């Protein structure tokens, strides 16, 4: 098992390298210049700007710049933002907890909806409950988060004035009040993201359960005289969880991607909005840093999916 994991990690290295090469090249070829502002600033003579560029290595050929970036990364130096001059690692670490909290809460909400609703609907296919659940899931899955996000802001912030629509980093309150304010401003992003994921996963859970429910071994279980709830939980849901868990783990990177949009709408100061502002400012070190984190997440969750899959399904052996 450990051996298998190590091998998987080693296999991941070339893909991570590949991703970084492509990204670096694209960013280098992209139009735009971090020193654009200096160019239009009459107080700074062009030769100062040129010296600055040279000192930062910006005039070297791409492969040289890539290599020096890579060597620095390997030493754990993520560089400094062109814009704010702060270390990239610090910027990411500052933003990551908010993103993880919002996404984590949204995923928990999504699972808390998808599992019971999907299972209950599948055990009563084509019942009223199933049809309502299906319809709602379809609607929830079809509405993009930017749309529901704006709808929520309109309804809860502007019309009802219950919730703040801009996420604040600094909350001047302590103790209970701080938590309360934090909760209030997290509700909408978590709801928007969680309901969307919940709708998608409800459909998936339902179909996974339906696939298992008509298998022969479920009839065998029933022939043993165990209760219907034991049949459902032990022999249907347990087996249906194999594809569900795998899919959830595999989708996590995509979920992070989707969270960028939500963070943008609600001005959540997370890693997604960091990426967007870095892209807008041509802030290559930050873009590279954030994307690299995303790439690592993909690799990590692939591994998690693999491990969970083998843990849930005894037919899989790691060799």
């Amino acid at each position, binding site marked *: 098992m450990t051996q298998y994991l190590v091998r998987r990690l080693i296999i991941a290295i070339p893909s991570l390298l590949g991703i970084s090469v492509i990204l670096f090249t694209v960013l280098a070829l992209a139009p735009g210049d971090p020193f654009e502002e200096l160019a239009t600033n009459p107080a700074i003579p062009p030769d100062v700007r040129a010296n600055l560029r040279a000192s930062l290595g910006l005039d070297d050929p791409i492969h040289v710049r890539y290599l020096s970036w890579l060597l620095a990364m390997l030493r754990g130096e993520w560089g400094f933002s062109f814009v704010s001059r702060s270390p990239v690692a610090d910027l990411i670490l500052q933003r990551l907890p908010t993103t993880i909290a919002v996404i984590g809460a949204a995923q928990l909400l999504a699972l808390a909806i998808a599992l019971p609703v999907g299972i209950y609907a599948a055990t009563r296919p084509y019942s009223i409950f199933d049809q309502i659940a299906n319809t709602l899931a379809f609607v929830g899955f079809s509405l993009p988060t930017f749309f529901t996000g704006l709808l929520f802001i309109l309804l809860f912030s502007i019309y009802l004035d219950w919730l703040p629509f801009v996420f604040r980093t600094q909350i001047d309150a302590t103790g209970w009040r701080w938590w309360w304010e934090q909760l209030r401003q997290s509700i909408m992003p978590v709801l928007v993201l969680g309901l969307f994921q919940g709708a998608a996963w409800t459909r998936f859970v339902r179909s996974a359960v339906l696939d298992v429910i008509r298998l*022969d071994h479920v009839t065998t279980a029933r*022939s043993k*005289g165990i209760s219907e709830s034991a049949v459902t939980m032990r022999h249907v849901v347990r087996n249906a969880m194999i594809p569900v868990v795998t899919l959830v783990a595999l989708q996590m990177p995509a979920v992070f991607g989707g969270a960028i949009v939500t963070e943008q709408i609600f001005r959540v100061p997370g890693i997604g909005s960091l990426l967007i502002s870095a892209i807008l400012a041509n802030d290559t070190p930050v873009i590279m840093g954030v994307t690299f984190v995303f790439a690592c997440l993909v690799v990590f969750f692939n591994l998690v999916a693999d491990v969970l899959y083998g843990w849930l399904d005894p037919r899989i052996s790691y060799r």
Partner: protein
Amino acid sequence: MNDGRILDIQGLKVHFATDDGMVRAVDGVDIGIDRGETVSVVGESGCGKTVTAMTILKLIAMPPGRIVAGRILWQGRDLVPMGPEQMRSIRAKEIGFVFQEPMTSLNPVYTVGSQIAEAIREHEGLSRRAALDHAAEMLRLVNIPNPSRRVHDYPHQFSGGMRQRVMIAMALSCSPKLLIADEPTTALDVTIQAQILDLLDEMKQRLGMAVLLITHAMGVVAETAQRVVVMYAGKVVEEAPVAALFARPRHPYTQGLIRSIPRLDMAATEHRRLEAIPGTVPSLLHPPAGCRFAARCRHAVEACRAEEPALRELGPGHKAACIRADEIA
């Protein structure tokens, strides 16, 4: 009616509502089993054998299935009106069931030991540990080597024949009074088939339960059963003690089934000349009027199509549903 009967199915009709209409899968079936007796139900695929067997334990999907008519008397009590909770106390505890497909009938994610123990824990109230010991005991009974180690193995670590042994161990683990085996050997290799039939026989000698053995192969019947019920298109067409049935089959369908048994003394070239019954089982969606076998029957006459022939007593315990039974055999 016979008081010694442990199971007495009377006039059972099971229909399925489908998009195309009502499938009359079981359309008026009577089957009785005495204590400790082995009864075999024979018929081609699609005759309603599985539906009949599964209905006894209410294991068919309802809906679309529905018991339209009839009684299923288990030790004198009718199972048809029983609720789910009461049915649970009958399943495995009183009536064990072995399914046709050993490859798919076990849950792949649990060890075979825990799957056998599940029934034991449910009905005998044993602890996990004690139930697992009992499960190993059951594996020993069905001749699986190394039982105390094998209980910890998963189904995919067993061959088809071994899995069917596991299924038999599971079905017998709560000492039921009746074992229903639905084509337990059909999915297996020929050599393994004989072993499983021998095992069923051995279990019956040791434990003394009654057996309802469902099969589509007449050859299997001759070896194992005391009484035979022949089903065709959702109905019983003949019923007789096994010796009487083979000595003088009265229904043309039974005669056809017996003629198609491959015999060991036949040369391989002769096998090809075995008389399979021409044609196929009619659709149970719109069964033909009159005798359902008429389209395939070499003795069919005009009168056969006029009215459905009733099951008549033709000898001691020997009944057949053919208007020409007296002339043709």
